[in-house]
């Protein structure tokens, strides 16, 4: 019985490590997709176009003219642009609920902006440039906060 329990533990640990590894891989892919947006869009388009080409070839082999074959291939594929957009969106999305992470990031930026504002107000300024640089810092943090908030709002269609 002890041996069976040991095997169960081993199996569960192995499964957890497989799941963790696949999550890490998916997270890396998602970050890559965000950083190389154009490259990913090209890759998706290449893949989808290849599908349409293969279907067109099969239609020609089935006796259609090249024009008919391509039209039929595009029709059986569905809305090409919509499929491409969905695929790119899925590639960019994180494999876990990122709401707590985003919320933490917003709070951190807001706290940093507040602290920087207090620091600017409470520091004696000997020159206009030091005051301007501190105000600039506060402005940058505020912008970051606004951008992060804007990205968090769900897109409505």
């Amino acid at each position, binding site marked *: 019985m002890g041996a069976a329990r040991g095997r169960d533990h081993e199996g569960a640990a192995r*499964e957890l490590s*497989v*799941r963790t*590894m*696949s*999550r890490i*891989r*998916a997270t890396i*892919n*998602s970050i890559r997709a965000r950083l190389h947006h154009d490259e990913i869009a090209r*890759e*998706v388009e290449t*893949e*989808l176009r*290849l*599908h349409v080409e*293969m*279907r067109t070839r099969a239609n020609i082999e089935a006796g259609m003219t090249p024009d008919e074959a391509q039209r039929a291939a595009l029709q*059986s*594929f*569905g*809305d*090409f642009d*919509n*499929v491409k957009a*969905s*695929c790119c969106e*899925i*590639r960019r*999305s994180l*494999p876990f609920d990122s709401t707590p992470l985003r919320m933490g990031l917003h709070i951190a930026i807001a706290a940093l902006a507040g602290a920087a504002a207090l620091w600017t107000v409470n520091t004696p300024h000997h020159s206009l440039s030091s005051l301007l640089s501190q105000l600039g810092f506060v402005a940058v943090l505020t912008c970051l906060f606004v951008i992060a908030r804007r990205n968090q709002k769900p897109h409505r269609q």
Partner: protein
Amino acid sequence: MAKSKAGLLQGTLDMLILKALSLGALHGYGIGQRIAQISGDALKIEEGSLYPGLYRLEQRGWVQSEWDVSDNNQKAKFYKLTRAGRKQLILEERNWERLAGATMKALRAS
């Protein structure tokens, strides 16, 4: 006689993709062909809808993809099932059998 094709129930496409890939690595077009083949050409699938499904499955770690050369010497993206994907397929098959059984039981009730 023309065969009428059945539309897919929500959520079954992912299971069919996993099933198609359980028989070996394939590119997107090949997956569509294999689903048509194993279902006896009875299911109506808009071919483009395979891809968001594939990307979702890859995101969940159930399939893995890599670019390789296809039979006709063309570069293509091939998908294969991961170990987690194989387990997921077993789970989904069991759920599907349970659901189908319960639905049939309900339909046959007098």
